C-alpha cells in the first residue's frame, strides 16, 4: 500500500508538471472563468435581484401643467428602474416615431388641461348632477408601448400609472368634500389632516424569507458566480479526457499497464491535480466576486455563513465533474471524440440545470427536468449557502447526489480500464 501511495504521489507530480507547462491550458483554467463571471455578473446585474440601474426609458408628455402630470412624474421618478424623460409639447405622432426608433419603451400622454377637466368633472359630481347629464368627460391619459417591452413589465408600469391617477382622483375628491364641509359647517369647520403627512398604512417593506436569519437578496452575482464556477469545473472534463486519451495515444498509458500500477493510482494521479485546479478555480471566482466585482460597479457576492458548506459543495461538484471526464475518456476512441462529446453533454447539462438560464424563469416542465442535471444539484447547493444562508446540513442532499454521480462514473471508468487488460 505504501508503495502504491508513493506511485500515486509521483503520478500527481507528473500530471502537475505537465499541466503547469501548458500555458494555454492554465489561461483557460484560471483566467477565462474569472473573466466570464466578471462580464456576465456586470452585464446581467439588473436582470436579477432589486438592483436599480439603466432599465426602461420612459417618456411622460405632460401636456397638463397641473396636479395629474406632477403626480404621475413623481410616481415614475420614485421608481429607480425607470429612466424618465419629461416633455410638455411632443405630439402623439412624434412619440410614436420615438417608440419605433427604440428611444423610449413606454410613453404616457397626459392631455392639456387634464387636471382642470378632472376638477370640473368632480365638481359636477359633487353637485349631484346625474350621470347622464354630466358635461365633463372622463380624462383620457393615453399609453403607448414598445413591443420589445415585456408584457409583465408593461403591466407593472400601467399599474403604477393607474395608482398615480387614483391618487389625484382621491385628492381632488377630498378637496371637493372639504369645500362642501366648510360651506356647510361654517365656523364649526375643522380641516382634515393632510393624508400624506399622516398615512393610514405603513410603507410596504417585503421581507425575503431564508432558512437562517438575515435578509439576503439574490443578486446577479449570486446566480452567476456559482453557475459559472460549476460550468468551469465541468468544462475541465474536456482537457481531462483529452489528456487521458493523448496519454493512451502516446502509449504511456499502455506502458503503465505493463507495470504493476493499479488502476486507482493511474486514475487518481490524473484526477487529483484536476481536483485541486477545480478548487482553485472556485476560490478565484469567489474571491473576484467578493472583492473585485464591487470595484467595477457590480454587487458584492454574499458568501453566506458557512465556508465549510462552500468547500463541501465545491469538492463534491469537482469530483462529479472529474468522474464524468474520466468515464468519457475511457469510452472515447479519439481526443476529438472525447472533446466534442464531453463539451456537448456539459452544455446540455448546463442548459438543463439552470446555469445558462436561471431555473426561476423556466416553465414548470423544464424546472422538473432540471433535476436530471448534476449542475442543477450543484447550483442548488451553492445557492442554499449564498442566498438562503444554509450550512453543511442544508447542502448535504445536493452534495451526496454529486458524490453518488462521481462514484458511479469512477466505478464505470475503473471497470473499463481493468477490462482492457
Amino acid at each position, binding site marked *: 500500500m505504501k508503495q502504491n501511495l*508513493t506511485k500515486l504521489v509521483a503520478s500527481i507530480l*507528473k500530471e502537475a508538471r505537465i499541466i503547469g507547462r*501548458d500555458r494555454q491550458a492554465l489561461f483557460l483554467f484560471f483566467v477565462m472563468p474569472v473573466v466570464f463571471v466578471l462580464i456576465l455578473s456586470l452585464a446581467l446585474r439588473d436582470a436579477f435581484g432589486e438592483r436599480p440601474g439603466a432599465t426602461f426609458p420612459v417618456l411622460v408628455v405632460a401636456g397638463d401643467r397641473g396636479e395629474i402630470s406632477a403626480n404621475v412624474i413623481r410616481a415614475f421618478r420614485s421608481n429607480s428602474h425607470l429612466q424618465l424623460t419629461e416633455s410638455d409639447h411632443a405630439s402623439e405622432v412624434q412619440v410614436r416615431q420615438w417608440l419605433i426608433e427604440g428611444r423610449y419603451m413606454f410613453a404616457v400622454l397626459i392631455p392639456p388641461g387634464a387636471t382642470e377637466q378632472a376638477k370640473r368633472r368632480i365638481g359636477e359630481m359633487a353637485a349631484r348632477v346625474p350621470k347622464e347629464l354630466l358635461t365633463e368627460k372622463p380624462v383620457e391619459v393615453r399609453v403607448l408601448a414598445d413591443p420589445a417591452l415585456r408584457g409583465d413589465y408593461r403591466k407593472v408600469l400601467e399599474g403604477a400609472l393607474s395608482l398615480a391617477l387614483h391618487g389625484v382622483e382621491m385628492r381632488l375628491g377630498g378637496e371637493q368634500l372639504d369645500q362642501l364641509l366648510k360651506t356647510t359647517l361654517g365656523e364649526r369647520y375643522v380641516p382634515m389632516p393632510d393624508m400624506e403627512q399622516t398615512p393610514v398604512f405603513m410603507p410596504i417593506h417585503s421581507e425575503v424569507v431564508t432558512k437562517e436569519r438575515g435578509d439576503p437578496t439574490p443578486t446577479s452575482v449570486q446566480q452567476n458566480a456559482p453557475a459559472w464556477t460549476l460550468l468551469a469545473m465541468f468544462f475541465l472534463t474536456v482537457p481531462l479526457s483529452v489528456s487521458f486519451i493523448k496519454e493512451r495515444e*502516446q502509449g504511456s498509458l499502455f*506502458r503503465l*499497464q505493463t507495470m504493476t500500477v493499479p488502476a486507482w493510482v493511474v486514475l487518481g494521479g490524473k484526477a487529483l491535480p484536476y481536483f485541486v485546479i477545480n478548487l482553485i478555480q472556485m476560490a478565484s471566482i469567489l474571491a473576484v466576486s467578493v472583492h473585485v466585482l464591487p470595484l467595477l460597479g457590480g454587487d458584492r457576492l454574499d458568501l453566506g455563513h458557512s465556508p465549510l458548506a462552500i468547500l463541501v459543495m465545491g469538492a463534491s461538484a469537482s469530483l462529479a465533474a472529474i468522474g464524468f471526464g474520466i468515464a468519457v475518456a475511457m469510452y472515447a476512441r479519439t481526443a476529438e471524440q472525447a472533446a466534442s462529446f464531453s463539451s456537448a453533454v456539459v452544455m446540455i447539462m448546463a442548459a438543463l440545470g439552470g446555469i445558462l438560464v436561471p431555473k426561476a424563469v423556466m416553465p414548470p416542465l423544464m424546472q422538473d427536468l432540471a433535476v436530471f442535471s448534476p449542475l442543477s444539484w450543484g447550483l442548488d447547493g451553492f445557492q442554499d449557502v449564498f442566498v438562503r444562508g444554509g450550512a453543511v446540513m442544508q447542502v448535504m442532499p445536493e452534495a451526496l447526489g454529486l458524490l453518488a454521480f462521481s462514484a458511479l462514473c469512477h466505478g464505470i471508468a475503473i471497470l473499463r480500464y481493468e477490462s482492457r487488460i
Partner: protein
Amino acid sequence: MNNPCPFSMQHAVKTGGVAAIELRQLSKRYKGARAPALNGIDLTVREGGFFGILGPNGAGKTTLMSVLGGLLKPSSGSVLINGQDLQRHRAAIKRVLGMVPQEPAIYPTLTARENLEYFGRMQGLTGKHLQSRVEACLEIAEISGEADQRVEHFSGGFKRRLNLVIGLIHEPRILILDEPTVAIDPHSRALIHQRLRELHAAGISILISTHYMEEAEQLCQEIAIMHHGRILVQGTVGDLLAMQRNETIQMQLTGDPPAALAQKLQKLPGLQNAFVSGRCVMVTAERPDEIAVQLMQTVHEHGLGVHSMGFGASSLEQVFLSLTESKAEK
C-alpha cells in the same frame, strides 16, 4: 481448429532449462473481426536467448507483443514467462518484464530525466537506487547531455533511445521490443543494436519484433516468420536458409525480362510460385531439380540467357518473401 506451424523447427531450440517465454497454441480474435489476429502460436524463447519475430505489416506482431505485455487477454492458449502463467502471476511477471513499445511511450512535455524518474517510481524504485538507475539509463542511451531537455524537442532517434532505456529502468530479466528501430537515423539504430547485444551478453532474454531482415539476421539467434497471425517457420537463420535450399531456384538473367515471363513461369507444372524482380528470378517448387530444365527453356523462349543459376535462398529476405508471398497467394 488451429493448424500446426507448416515448417516448424522446434528441434532448433535448446531447452536446457525453463524457457524465458513460452507460448502454447496462443490465439487472439478481436471482437467482430473475421480472422484471428493470432492463430495457434507456438513459440519458445530460451533463457538468455535472442529471438526475432519477422512479419509484414498486419502479420500480428504488435498483437503478440500486447498479449506478452499483459495489455490484451488471449482468446485461448497460454503464455508462460519463466515457467509461470501470465494470467495467474501477472504482478510477479510484470516485475521481470521490460516492455519497449513500437511508438515512443513517453511524456513529451517532461524532460528525459523526469520521464525516467517517473517510470522508475512506477516500477517501484525509490531513493538512491532510482537515481543511480536513471543515470545509468541516460548513459546507456547516450543522452546524459540532454537529460534535462524536454523530450518534445528530441529527434526521433533520441526519443527511441529514451523509449528503450525506460524499458530497462527496473533491470528486467526479459526484454520485449516491438520494432524498436523504425524510422530512425543510422547512428541511433547502430547504438540500439549495440546496446541490445550488450544486454544479451549480460544474460537478458530478448524478444524483438521487426520487419528489417538485416536487423533480425544480425541480432537474433532464432527467428520466427509470422504471417496472418500464424508462425510460418521458426529456427536459426542457418536453419531457415537451409530449409529453403531444397525448394528454391534463383536465376540471374542476361537481360530485362518481359512482363509475360512471370505469367508463363507460373503455369509451369510443379512450380509453386515465381517472383521476377529486375533481372532476378526466384521460383519455389517441391522438386526444383525437376523443373530446372523447363525453367531455362522458358527463359530462352523469351530471347534471354541465364547469367547464373543456383538452388536455395541466399538471404533471409528471399526466405521471407517466398514464404509470405506464397501464403498470400494461397
